[in-house]
């Protein structure tokens, strides 16, 4: 290790700060990569389900398996699903929509209110594969940032998308979305959409680290607001074992969510901007970060708080 000669720093608890060490064995490596592997499986499997239904006529019980695309789809010809942000954009153009797409949007909204909106970004969105690759390559090549841009820019883009929808009379983001373009052209035939995807890749690689997903994408901004309070699946933070080594923040694509002071108070990474990608959990040498349910975390937290206050009182 490069910092082997350095004096071991001391953590918050007074103990030595350990750094993350990549295991030498393949099994160990795969275990570290478990969430990235699962995420790729989830993203590719979803694409494959859409593609298989469209091109190979995949059916279950004589019903199309998953018809449509991420904008709007139908599972087994019965369960409608729709992108709630796309539906919202169409609604602000004062178009009256059929109930099917409205029900579908509410259904998806409910799902993400439970698992955390930005789980979409890490587990479903196809562009995430492109930006993850760009991010990985950027670190490998040691490319520094071209300029600073606030991560809140995405909320401006989100507001703008709705405003422009009202003005132009069409769903503004859906007409230029690299997410929609990539997903659609992978399923329905490739046009010049690859140029938009390449644009996102180059932006993330050369111009701005995590530029698209972390700064600009209004869909990500929309999902950051979905379930920001209600999301059940969250990263549990164990303050007692944390040494503040910073490994989690180094790997996190949205490092601002790892506000450990706040996380210590509520016992979890509470920000809606957390994508539930799980990258931080295997990197933590003290296992202070792990997936857990909000209910379990808050219950546990209440108990331990009660414990400390009792101790203080005594």
């Amino acid at each position: 290790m490069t910092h082997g000669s350095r004096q071991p720093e001391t953590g918050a608890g007074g103990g030595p700060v350990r750094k993350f060490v990549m295991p030498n064995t393949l099994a160990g490596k795969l275990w570290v990569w478990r969430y990235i592997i699962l995420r790729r499986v989830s993203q590719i499997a979803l694409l494959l389900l859409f593609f298989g239904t469209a091109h190979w006529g995949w059916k279950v019980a004589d019903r199309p398996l998953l018809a449509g695309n991420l904008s709007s789809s139908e599972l087994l010809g019965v369960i409608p699903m729709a992108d709630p942000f796309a539906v919202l954009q169409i609604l602000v153009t004062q178009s009256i929509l059929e109930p099917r797409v409205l029900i579908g949007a509410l259904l998806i909204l409910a799902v993400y209110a439970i698992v955390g909106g930005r789980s979409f970004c890490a587990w479903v969105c196809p562009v995430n594969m492109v930006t993850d690759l760009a991010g990985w390559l950027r670190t490998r090549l040691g490319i520094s940032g071209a300029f600073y841009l606030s991560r809140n820019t995405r909320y401006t883009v989100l507001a703008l998308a709705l405003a422009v929808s009202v003005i132009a009379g069409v769903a503004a983001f859906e007409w230029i979305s690299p997410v929609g373009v990539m997903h659609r052209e992978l399923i329905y035939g490739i046009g010049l959409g690859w140029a938009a995807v390449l644009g996102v890749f180059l932006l993330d690689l050369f111009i701005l680290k995590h530029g698209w997903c972390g700064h600009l994408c209004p869909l990500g901004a929309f999902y950051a607001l979905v379930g920001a309070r209600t999301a059940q699946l969250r990263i549990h933070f164990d303050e007692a074992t944390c040494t503040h080594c910073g490994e989690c923040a180094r790997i996190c694509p949205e490092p601002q969510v790892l506000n450990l002071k706040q996380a210590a108070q509520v016992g979890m990474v509470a920000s809606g901007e957390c994508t539930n990608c799980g990258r931080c959990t295997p990197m933590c040498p003290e296992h202070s970060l792990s997936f857990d349910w909000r209910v379990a975390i808050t219950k546990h937290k209440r108990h331990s708080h009660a414990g400390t206050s009792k101790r203080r009182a005594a």
Partner: protein
Amino acid sequence: MSKAKVSRRALVGKVAQGTTLAVTGGSIWSYLLSQQARAAPRAVRPPGARQDDDFNAHCIKCGQCVQACPYDTLRLAAVGEAIPIGTPYFIPRQIPCYMCPDIPCRKACPTGALDSVLEDINEARMGLAVIDVEHCLSWQGLRCEICHRECPVQDQAITVELLPRRVSKHAMFVPMVHSAHCTGCGICENACPTEEAAIRVVPPGLVQGKLGAHYRLQQRPDTLRDQKSPDSQTPMRSNTVETSALEYLNEGESR
């Protein structure tokens, strides 16, 4: 207090910067969208599609209509095509609409961009067939009439009319399209034997005129063709031409 004043000034500056950026960005964005939407009039849409602006607003670009089509007629516009991005359309010369009576594409639409008021496929108006008489074989005096024979709304959407010629005894049998019945399915365009189709489906707005409500047409015989009731099966023909041509066909050159 002075600190608050400075930060207030800075805040005003920030707000001005932000507003300028947002308004500029929003204007460019709106402009691009309007340019995209303007490409719409060229598209031949699936049955039941709403009018251009309304369709563009409703369509969520999911492609469920494309998947529902049993003939692979429909496709979604990719980036770079002269049709609004991600919207469904078809190219009749490649695969026309075969007018399924149950309209599966319309039923698959989750948003109503393909309007659910369309119950009868014969009421669909995907486009309007127009004939290029300079290149239509029938208009050159040949007996083609393939479009008429292939037309699924035969003798209503396309009729064959008898047309006298000044220099020859041979009359012409020419196809005529009637907008009151043409669904724009494009089977005629698909079947047209000329190298480039001489009958083509285009969005009606591109070619169709409008008379104006103040015109009152006289019931002169030569205007009856345009005035006939929608369900009349036989086209009105000029009697003199018909009889003389029939006499010619029956009696031959000897007469």
